[in-house]
């Protein structure tokens, strides 16, 4: 509903502007009736209004503009000339259109003005013979001669006039009935909109009124001249009547036209960069003032600072639009394409409100459309094929948009055939893009990426769908042109995900300034979750090193740490100061960062301040360094590099193995080491749980465990968390110790959590790569060597399902207290 309102609002603004132009054009046209340019412009304007009103189901408006358009098209074709009457009629039409538009603006409905006569008059003017017809306006027809002339003319036009009038009347009646139906339905659908009822009544009134004009027109020709004059008046009168209505309803509400202005995007760009400079000057002023002691000046500066922030925010906003402005065109694309290719596709959208800079939206429009087309053409199979593969015949095409780590991510996910890297590889060799030898050295992921190479197209033939317009290479070029990147992940048989990641390089962003090894760096606030201060002794106590991989216990949860000085190669690995290299010998800080759904702690020497920074791009010699998103200039004029949280995480290899493997082959040099949490079950049996599957460690009193049906649950952070005793699950039989407190390892995914009850938390250890052996046992992945002991590796997924079979069903939310009843029922 809101989307429609938006479209209507846009339509109104556009139409109002166009109508103003139309007035001028029509008048100019009267002076120069043969100007094809003017005629063309007038025609286009009316045509646009007609088209849009038809689309928005404003039938009256459509009918009115339609007949106007017919008249204009005749003129444009040179079949008839513009004369005074036609101009008047057209201007009357413009007024009537205005009236209708203001009704739409006030109430969302076309109102009950009756334009039957006007439609008839315009229709009449369409007739060739009418060129010679003396004015139909009685003011001029007051002389008897003219009156007779008119009568004759009308009689001459005779039947056709009548027909036109009749047809128009019928159409109007049909329309009115339709409108009434719509209103009735609307009233049904939205009982709260009581005024709609009143509209229904008036709509009915107009239905009863409709037959009258033809009654007046149909009888003998003499009265014929009379219909035209009311044409303007009825249009005026109801408008006048209606006027107080919107006035009453929203005196204070500015009309749509007044409240929005079209601004050249170049002007906004200029404003934007000026605001950027202003922010920098503000920062410079503020840092100067910090060194002086002038309270009056400080107050003024404070105020300037506030206004600058506000201004900046507002200017930013002028350029932001929801991604939906691009997406809203896609359902149609999907519908048409799936018909054309006999696919059955359901389009889903997530994050439609995600706002993007206007220029970015403009730039992603074509790539986005292409990727959607591509997903349907090459991705999603026909229903028959899908059924054959055991898939739902209805394919799902999902669009996702979200902000993360200072980037906007747009994903196009299909559950289609996926990309066969063998086919891609062969094709690439065939096209001479790579040699066979090169191909053999490539990973399947690298091969898949070749679809973005220029000159690559897997389509067997150039189809109407994907073969035209932009190719994958153009998608890549366009996205890279705005500083973004394109990535594809594909599972053969299960679908593909294309991800566009677009950095906010144009934007001003809030950032945290940190100190490391005597230098300053900025970290975008979007990636910063929290700051942890490491005080002297705590620094040593809090950070635990496991085979060189530091971890910090943050409120019971385990946070992998990354030493910034090591990552920037300012010190050699293993010699990090641990964040203590700041001026006054204090401990350092852990900046808890978020990168691709993972948290990690960045150990830095100092946290200085937060400020708004203008992101400046780096030159080409530094483009290849993923660690930096860009640079900014601080108040003192120095250049400060902006760190990219995700790139740091990748470099330090703290993302999940999957993500790390996916990030680049660079990481392959280091042996993958998966940290595990070693726990003891009853009877001294030990089990290892992969650390990335551990969200928190908790200790709870035994008595808080409740039984629901056959399951043990505990109330945890407002949810019911099912427990599974690993000892029972794995069949570790031993002395059941009767502890008053239970140690829990909590795994959380989205809203859901599961707790594994264990005897004791032992240690965080590192699984030596290649030390894994398979054990074919329930809920175990195998055994690994930790230290000098063989430890079983828990299959967390199996264990989770043992506790909560519905855990991985995303749509089902967390078990809430309300659902407790259901659990009881299930148990009975």
């Amino acid at each position, binding site marked *: 509903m809101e989307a429609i309102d938006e479209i209507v609002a846009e339509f109104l603004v556009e139409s109002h502007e166009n109508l103003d132009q139309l007035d001028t054009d029509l008048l100019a046209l009267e002076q120069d009736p043969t100007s094809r340019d003017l005629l063309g412009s007038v025609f286009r304007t009316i045509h646009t209004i007609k088209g849009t009103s038809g689309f928005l189901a404003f039938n009256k408006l459509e009918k009115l503009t339609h007949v106007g358009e017919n008249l204009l098209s005749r003129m444009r074709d040179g079949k008839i000339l513009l004369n005074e009457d036609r101009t008047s009629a057209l201007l009357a039409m413009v007024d009537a259109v205005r009236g209708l538009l203001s009704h739409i603006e006030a109430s969302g409905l076309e109102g009950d003005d009756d334009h039957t006569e006007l439609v008839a008059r315009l229709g009449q003017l369409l007739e060739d013979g009418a060129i010679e017809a003396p004015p139909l306006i009685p003011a001029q027809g007051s002389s008897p001669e003219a009156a007779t002339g008119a009568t004759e003319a009308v009689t001459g036009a005779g039947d056709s006039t009548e027909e036109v009038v009749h047809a128009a009347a019928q159409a109007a009646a049909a329309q009115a009935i339709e409108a009434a139906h719509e209103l009735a339905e609307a009233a049904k659908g939205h009982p709260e909109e009581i005024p709609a009822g009143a509209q229904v009544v008036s709509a009915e009134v107009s239905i009863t009124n409709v037959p009258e004009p033809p009654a007046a027109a149909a009888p003998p020709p003499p009265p014929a001249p009379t219909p035209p004059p009311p044409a303007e008046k009825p249009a005026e009168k109801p408008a006048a009547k209606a006027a107080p209505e919107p006035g009453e309803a929203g005196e204070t509400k500015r009309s749509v036209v007044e409240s929005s202005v079209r601004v050249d995007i170049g002007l906004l760009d200029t404003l934007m960069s000026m605001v950027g400079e202003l922010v*920098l000057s503000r920062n410079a002023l503020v840092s100067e003032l910090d060194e002086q002691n002038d309270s009056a000046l400080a107050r003024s500066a404070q105020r300037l600072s506030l206004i600058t922030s506000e201004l900046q925010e507002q200017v930013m906003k002028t350029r932001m639009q929801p991604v939906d402005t691009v997406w809203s065109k896609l359902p149609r694309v999907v519908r048409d394409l799936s018909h054309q290719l006999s696919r059955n596709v359901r389009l889903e959208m997530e994050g439609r409100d995600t706002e993007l800079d206007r220029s970015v939206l403009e730039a992603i429009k074509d790539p986005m459309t292409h990727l959607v087309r591509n997903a349907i053409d090459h991705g999603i199979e026909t229903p028959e094929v899908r059924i054959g593969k055991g898939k739902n015949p209805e394919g799902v095409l999902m669009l996702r948009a979200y902000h993360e780590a200072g980037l906007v991510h747009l994903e196009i996910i299909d559950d289609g055939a996926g990309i066969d890297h063998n086919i891609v590889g062969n094709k690439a060799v065939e096209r001479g893009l790579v040699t066979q030898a090169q191909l053999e050295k490539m990973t399947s992921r690298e091969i898949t990426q070749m679809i973005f190479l220029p000159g690559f197209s897997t389509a067997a033939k150039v189809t109407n769908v994907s073969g035209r317009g932009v190719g994958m290479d153009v998608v890549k070029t366009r996205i890279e042109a705005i500083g973004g990147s394109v990535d594809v992940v594909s599972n053969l048989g299960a679908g593909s995900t294309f991800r566009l990641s677009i950095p906010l390089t144009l934007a001003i962003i809030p950032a945290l300034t940190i100190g490391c090894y005597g230098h300053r760096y900025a970290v975008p606030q979007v990636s910063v979750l929290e700051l942890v201060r490491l005080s002297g002794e705590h620094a040593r106590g809090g950070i635990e090193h496991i085979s060189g991989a530091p971890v910090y216990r943050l409120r019971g949860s385990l946070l992998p740490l990354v030493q910034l000085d090591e990552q920037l190669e300012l010190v050699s690995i293993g010699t990090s100061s641990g964040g203590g290299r700041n001026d006054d010998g204090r401990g350092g800080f852990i900046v808890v960062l978020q990168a691709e759904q993972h948290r990690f702690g960045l150990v830095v020497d100092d946290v200085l301040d937060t400020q708004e920074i203008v992101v400046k791009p780096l030159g080409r010699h530094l483009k290849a360094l993923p660690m930096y998103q860009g640079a900014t200039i601080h108040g003192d004029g120095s250049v400060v590099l902006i760190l990219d949280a995700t790139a740091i995480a990748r470099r330090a290899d703290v993302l999940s193995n999957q993500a790390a493997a996916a990030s680049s082959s660079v990481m392959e040099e280091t042996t993958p080491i998966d940290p595990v949490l070693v726990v003891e079950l009853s009877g001294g049996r030990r089990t290892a749980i992969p650390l990335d599957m551990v969200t928190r460690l908790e200790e709870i009193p035994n008595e808080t465990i409740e039984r629901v049906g056959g399951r043990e649950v505990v109330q945890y952070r407002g949810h019911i968390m099912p427990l599974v005793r690993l000892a029972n699950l794995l069949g570790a039989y031993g002395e059941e110790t009767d502890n008053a407190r239970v140690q829990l390892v909590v795994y959380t995914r989205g809203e859901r959590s599961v707790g594994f009850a264990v005897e004791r938390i032992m240690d965080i250890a590192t699984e030596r790569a290649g030390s894994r052996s398979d054990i074919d046992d329930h809920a175990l992945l195998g055994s690994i060597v930790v230290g000098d002991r063989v430890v079983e590796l828990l299959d967390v997924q199996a264990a989770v399902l043992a506790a909560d079979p519905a855990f991985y069903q995303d749509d089902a939310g967390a078990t809430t207290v309300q659902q407790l009843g259901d659990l009881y029922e299930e148990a009975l």
Partner: protein
Amino acid sequence: MTQLSTFHVGSYLFGVEVALVQEVVRMQKFTPVPLASAEVSGLINLRGEVLTAIDVRARLGLPPTTGERAQVNVVVRVDDEPVSLLVDEIGGVVEVSQIPFEGTPSTVNARVGSLLLGAYTLPDKLLLALDARALLAFDEGRSAAA
């Protein structure tokens, strides 16, 4: 190419097309860029624009400057991107249309030679015409792979 802006690096006298040179600035503070190639000496703030400063000595494989005197930034604009070249000392603009031009002399070392368009034989000295594009086209991806 008739006029060259000249500058000294080590014992060499280099020249680049005068049209490429945007300005010469004596700078100032550098912000080091960890992980970047050795040729990148840092970032400078040129009136609100962030420029990469290229250490020409490092690029030519010369030892770092012994350093009493501050180096000079020659800001060149190549392919519409300004880059600062860090040189030892700036020379004048030399009109070279009347000066004999020859290929890269064999006396210069190979690394330097690969970045030259050729040499002008001034009465007292060789003026080496630098290929600015080649000079800036060093391995831009090194650090990504590091």
